């Protein structure tokens, strides 16, 4: 980049001459770039949050309904007694049935969406790391809630026809949609499921299965293996059972990332490219007007004998300065406002660096119009009037 010496940098001097307009543009751009950063951060937060729930389950193998990749990416329903069958397999240290259901609960006059996890006491799938209070100990009517739900310890919550007491709190456990997680026992969860099913559907279910006890279904069976047992091999063995499928923890995380996160990635990718396009247009227009305003100066510089690379440098440096200042301001803005976002924002240095690189490329693209205009300016036009 040609710079005309520290004392007389034309790009910076010209910026200083039009400082107000330049900074206003930077302010607008920094908001745009801040939004881009926030979206990328929300996306990262989304991944962390949704994987968080899957990781917190503490399983090595997820046994689900045959021919599905459940329970997050696809619906999966298994008879509850399969848990005992799985637990009896060679190599299993512990197995627990779990259910997941989205529930709306009334709390202090407001409707709250929750992901209710039904899990068995002291089995895989129960609430990990209770930060306040205690884990669920009684088989009925106790709940462990995530802090994000806003429930206090000891508070009573009505779900379906039953009332639960919050006995413990977890932190940072939300569903991929952002709903806080609430743990209850599997038995309570099955009852809740039954209560919330419309009466007609309930009769239908009872008629087709033809037997009582059909409410004992789970969405997945979480398996912890004995040390030295290969999860992949174990999953393959389970999959030989026709009505069962099994995913290792790694596979489950990949499936989740693909299905749940891909959509978010596409949406966020779309908005990000839209915002970057808008930024390009704004930078391009401002750099173009700044170039038009400098027409006479540029003609004079050419007339004196400035080579084209000086002129190009002048314009490109201004575009890069605009991008850099806006990016830094935008990043500072997001950092300062991180706590005020409704979703978790995770700013990773690598993401920020990539975006900064993209912004620099955008600046180069945006300066093309100005550069083209500047190169076409006739030095003789400096003489006129």
């Amino acid at each position, binding site marked *: 980049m040609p710079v*005309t*010496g*520290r*004392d*007389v940098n*034309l790009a910076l*001097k*010209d910026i*200083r*001459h*039009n400082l107000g307009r330049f900074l206003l543009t930077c302010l607008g751009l920094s908001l745009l770039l801040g939004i881009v950063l926030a979206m990328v951060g929300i996306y990262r937060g989304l991944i962390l949050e949704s994987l968080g729930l899957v990781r917190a389950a503490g399983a090595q193998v997820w046994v689900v309904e045959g021919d599905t990749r459940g329970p997050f990416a696809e619906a999966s329903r298994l008879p509850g007694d399969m848990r005992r069958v799985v637990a009896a397999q060679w190599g299993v240290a512990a197995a627990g049935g779990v259910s997941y259901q989205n529930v709306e609960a009334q709390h202090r006059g407001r409707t709250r969406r929750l992901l209710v996890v039904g899990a068995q006491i002291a089995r895989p799938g129960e609430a990990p790391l209770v930060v306040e209070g205690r884990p669920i100990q009684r088989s009925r009517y106790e709940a462990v809630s995530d802090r994000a739900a806003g429930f206090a310890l000891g508070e009573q919550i009505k779900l379906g026809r039953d009332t639960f007491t919050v006995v413990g709190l977890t932190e940072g456990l939300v569903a991929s949609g952002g709903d806080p997680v609430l743990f209850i026992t599997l038995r309570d969860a099955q009852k809740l499921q039954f209560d919330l099913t419309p009466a007609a559907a309930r009769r239908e279910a009872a008629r087709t299965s033809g037997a009582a006890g059909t409410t004992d279904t789970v969405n997945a069976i979480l398996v912890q293996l004995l040390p030295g047992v290969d999860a992949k091999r174990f999953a393959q063995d389970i999959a030989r059972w026709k009505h069962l499928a099994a995913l290792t923890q790694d596979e489950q995380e990949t499936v989740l990332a693909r299905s749940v996160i891909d959509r978010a990635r596409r949406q966020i990718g779309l908005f990000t490219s839209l915002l970057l396009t808008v930024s390009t247009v704004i930078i391009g227009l401002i750099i173009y007007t700044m170039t038009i305003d400098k027409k*006479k*100066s540029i003609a*004079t*510089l*050419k*007339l*004196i*004998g*400035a*080579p084209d690379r*000086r002129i190009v440098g002048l314009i490109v440096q201004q575009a890069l300065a605009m991008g850099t200042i806006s990016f830094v301001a935008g990043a500072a803005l997001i950092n300062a406002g991180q706590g005020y976002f409704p979703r978790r924002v995770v700013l990773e240095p690598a993401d920020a660096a990539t975006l900064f690189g993209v912004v620099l490329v955008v600046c180069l693209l945006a300066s093309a119009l100005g550069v083209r205009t500047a190169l076409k300016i006739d*030095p*003789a036009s*400096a*003489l006129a*009037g």
Partner: protein
Amino acid sequence: MAELPIVEIRGISKHFGEGPARVDALRDVSLDVFPGTVVGLRGPSGSGKSTLLNVIGCILEPNSGSMRLNGELVYDGKWLRVDLRGLRLEKIGFIFQAHNLLPFLNAWENVAVARILAGASPAQAKSRALELLSYLGVERRKDAMPGELSGGEAQRIAIARALANDPRIVLADEPTAALDSQRAGAVMDLLRKVATERRTAVIVVTHDEKIFDRFDRIYSLRDGAMEAPHPQAA
């Protein structure tokens, strides 16, 4: 005058447009300008004065003829030198009717920038700029922005910029048009001083009859053709 001319023009022609719209701005113009002289170019509006100055400044390509600057044949039916901007930077200083200072640089920076473009270090360029400003008597305005300068001050800064790289040729297109007669006289005195002290060839386009007596020679253009020169009685 035993010295070789710095500007040597032979049979230069320049026309704009073709067919019925064709304007012959210069017709077979020849001209010699020697070091240390101040030469005037006069003529009615549209007679081709600016066109001639632009050709000498290597800003405008003529259609035919030849031109030698400082002994170097730069045009002979076509440009013989690729780096015309480099030539301008080193050999030619321009002074405009409107001073054309860069509005975003202060007075000394406007002078220094020409020097920096020619490859000088910023410190060197600054000291040269301050030296020129004091030579032209505007040193105390060195930190002023162009918008804060009077017309006469701005024109002197512009002259300082034209002199920044010690050019062999100074081209001025109506440099006094925006000035009152007293300041116009002062500017002409400065150009005279530059010519005498630095052996520069100074070519000034002017309408201004008040300063006609300041030139060593005056050339008159009419419809793009040169009329017989008027040697000034010294």
